[in-house]
């Protein structure tokens, strides 16, 4: 369930960024009028929720202390959104988690997530399969790194996941696929991902 939602979040992250700031005053949404949730609708809902998060006039709390802390949290989210647009990896990771939080709020069950993208379909797009594969592989590398003694641990072990994966399964060998197999090339095929 987690990887499905995270993949969804990954797809949405590209749709949510700068426009969130500009459209922060959107109030009405038609997303809730229809019961069927689509990827486009979910993306809009995430955009709206993030806009709501960074709005300075929305606050639920008990005290001045809470209010100040909420303002600081909002300011932090604004910074992270700005930095993720600029391409900073750490900021992207944080924004992705934020989006994941919103997606889980709207998509509470696995069947709801499958309704948006048919994760259980045998004809699932190879791109999405690749995303799921990488998500699990990164997680595996992080876990493996955590079990090593402290002095042998590396920082951000998931960063080179694709490099390690390609090397491990010898996917960087020359293949004769394009141009009727005449010319050698380097690529990863859909079959290899399957």
């Amino acid at each position, binding site marked *: 369930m987690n990887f499905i939602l995270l993949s969804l979040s990954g797809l949405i992250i590209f749709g949510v960024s700068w426009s969130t700031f500009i459209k922060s005053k959107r109030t009405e949404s038609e997303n809730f009028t229809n019961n069927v949730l689509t990827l486009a609708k979910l993306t809009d809902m995430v955009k709206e929720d993030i806009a709501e*998060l960074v709005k300075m006039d929305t606050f639920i709390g008990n005290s001045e202390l809470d209010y100040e802390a909420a303002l600081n949290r909002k300011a932090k989210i604004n910074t992270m959104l700005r930095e993720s647009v600029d391409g900073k990896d750490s900021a992207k990771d*944080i924004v992705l988690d934020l989006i994941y*939080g919103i997606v889980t*709020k709207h998509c509470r069950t696995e069947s709801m997530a499958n309704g948006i993208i048919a994760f259980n379909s045998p004809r699932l797009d190879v791109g999405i399969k690749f995303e799921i594969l990488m998500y699990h592989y990164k997680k595996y590398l992080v876990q493996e790194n955590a079990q090593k003694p402290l002095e042998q641990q590396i920082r951000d072990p998931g960063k080179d996941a694709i490099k390690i994966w390609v090397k491990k399964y010898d996917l960087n060998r020359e293949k004769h696929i394009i141009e009727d197999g005449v010319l050698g090339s380097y690529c990863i095929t859909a079959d290899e991902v399957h």
Partner: protein
Amino acid sequence: MIISVITPVHGQTGNTTVALTLVHALALTQMKEVCLTHIDYGSQSIISSLGVEPSEDITRSLSHVAKMLTNNALKADEIPDYAIKIFKGLDIYSTHKVDLEEYEILSFFDNLIRNMTAYHHTIIDVDSEKTSNSTVKALEVSDAIIIPITQNTIVIQEAIRLKRMIREKLEDIKGKKKSNAVAIYFVVNHYRPEIMSSAKIAKKLGVPRKSVLTLEYNQWFMRSSNNGRLTDIFSSCLNNDARVLKLKFDMKRMCKTLLGKEFIWEVDNKKVKQDDLEDEGVI
């Protein structure tokens, strides 16, 4: 100072109650910034005792904080912005969202504890399994350990076993010399002197008498805990309410034993509510 509160028998000795008493005592009388956190984020016992509504604010979820700490996007002095504020000086770290894997919790916990420099004292309510990795991590970072017990013989026997286990673990992690620097105390929860005196309990446990603290049984205390008004009962006892006066002495002894030379006793009137709890139906 990092203090872990770990129970010998899960769910029977009032682990959370002892942890909450300690944080209130430190925050209300020692003029310190204190925070309370726990390991089993699925447990709602802390926030329900304090009457805090579980918030679904995703900007405050601990998985969000974990990501920021891992990515070095959060400075130590910014961590308190993500806590649940009970009053000035007392913050709680809990979450409504438990989507973290065990290794993520461990790394997060490690990060969080190392960056808790905004607080003078951090109390960890160890509500996970005694032998779990998270428990071991909590013991590893602790300067002092509190084992809440009752006057039940079986609980006392389990507490002896737990103390032995903690000492062995600490020796493995820190070595004998450093592990001896970690003090282990026992707090007898729901204490009734007519059942067994604290001196006798200390003898049974095989520890000096000063290592055994007490938290006397009090019906008002229990009632306010059930009503989610625990903070009010601490305020009330510090305002010398006769019905919960013994709690004040227990809190004082707890602080004195744990803090040693650092101990002061100054009730912060700004933090202590002057409301009449009777009018509000708490007492």
